[in-house]
């Protein structure tokens, strides 16, 4: 494990922790954006160039802004209702530990299940493009349909809000 990996892991985990522990909601959203950036850098350190850049473009650029706008338009970021932790924190801890255990078991076991490969496979942008319009064209079109439905739904919700306020 190289020092670069430890640094990036610290950034990602630190950002995630800050996103749940900070008091100001906007700070939490920006800490989540830092965590996304850390993930993108981890992808880049594994030579997955396309995944890293798209993570930046989509998560930091679009999803981060979306979360921030959602916070701004729906609640006052300074308000604190009750404490920082919810009342059912023990249950949350148990569920999070269970999910972590399952994921950790799957990841640690996968090393022995995959065939031994001498070199890491290089998936260039060209290969990803060819796969997307060749073998995986049906999932691509279904995802496009899903996004269109989401966009139309968002427009309808916004329109009804404007007319419902009369």
């Amino acid at each position, binding site marked *: 494990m190289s020092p670069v990996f430890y640094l990036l892991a610290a950034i990602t985990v630190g950002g995630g922790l800050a996103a749940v522990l900070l008091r*100001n909601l*906007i*700070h939490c959203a*920006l800490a989540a*954006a830092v965590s996304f950036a850390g993930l993108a850098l981890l992808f880049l350190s594994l030579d997955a*160039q*396309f995944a890293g*850049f*798209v993570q*930046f*473009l989509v998560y*930091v*650029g*679009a999803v*981060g*802004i979306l979360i*921030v*706008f959602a916070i*701004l338009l729906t609640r006052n970021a300074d308000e604190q209702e009750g404490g920082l932790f919810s009342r059912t924190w023990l249950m949350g801890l148990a569920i999070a530990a269970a999910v972590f255990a399952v994921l950790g078991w799957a990841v640690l076991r996968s090393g022995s299940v995959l065939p031994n490969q001498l070199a890491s496979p290089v998936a*260039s*942008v*060209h290969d990803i493009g060819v796969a997307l319009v060749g073998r995986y064209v049906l999932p691509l079109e279904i995802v496009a349909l899903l996004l269109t439905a989401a966009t139309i739904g968002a427009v309808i919700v916004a329109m009804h809000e404007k007319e419902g*306020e*009369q």
Partner: protein
Amino acid sequence: MAQETDQIFVLLTGWILSYLPEWLRPYGLAVLGVVGVLAVYVTLFALTTWFERKGLARMQNRYGPNRVGPFGLFQPIADGVKALVKEDVVPFRADQVLHFLAPLILLIAVCMELGVVPVGRNMVLVDMDAGLLFFFAMGASTELSVFMAGWSSRNKYSLLGAMRAIAQMISYEIPLLLSAVAAVMIAGTLSLPKIVEAQSGFTDMLPHWYVFTPWGFAGALIFGIAASAETNRCPFDLPEGESELVAGYFTEYSGFKFAIFFIAEYIGMFSISSISVTLFFGGWGAPLSFLSFIPSWIWFFAKVMTMIFVFIWVRGTLPRLRQDQLMNFAWKFMLPLSLVNLGVTALWRFMNDDWQRWAACTAILVVSYVVLGLTGMRSQHVAPRKYRYAE
């Protein structure tokens, strides 16, 4: 001789690196490259501030700065000194950490964008396979810092300016990306040096630049308009308009932080002009084949400065667009037109190389332009105003 002046910076770098031990060479190369790029672009920034003030002034029939040096050439130095010695006023209730970080993150994102641009033959700082994608990823990161600047100032005008700026940047990112994708489709690669090489042939002295094709011309225009919207330049500078919003999202910034925003905006303008030159105007290639003896980096910077001059020209000529006009323009005109441009590019790619290809592509683009202009940009029927009172 022409070959050597063309590669003079590459040879200079190699000569300097030969004095370093073997293990230090990659780091030395990185440091030299970064220092070179930053030095060139910051000097260009200083020159551009002078150029803009003189250019705007002459277009408005006045002189512009002419006191500080011959023709006012030392004005940028005076501006820099003023920005450095001004008191840094931070509002008491402002979010101190975010207020400090916002200009830094903007400058970092914008300087990272400069790393992938091929400035000349064999002269690119980082040769990535997906260079164009990296550029747009960094461009998306600038929006977050604009929001941070507007929010952390705890000022109504800043927040309004930041919201408008983000809405504008997000809306115009789609035509920007789609028109860039047209050039990528024809070149077949996302790597910027390879896109420049794909445009480097000549037919009877005329270059193979993409701007000389119908889809390239439309694409370059769409990219240029979207670029001036992305960098908040006139006529899209509502977020920083002085008569509308005091100064928009950098109202509460004074002294050097304001100068950092200014630098970041201009360097953003440079990097997006560089990308448009790379994608559509042939990068470092010469316009006529017998002019290839002039070094490639001179051609690149000449083209970038011409684009900057066009930006300044447009700023001096056109009035500011209102927010709703701006958004209508993006979603109802530019987006459909860039989709049509993408379709026309695909048609160009698969038709045979003769006059019918030119005629068909030009006809489709002109018809869609006229139709979209007539339907999309119809004046909106504004309903009587409804007032919502605070309870």
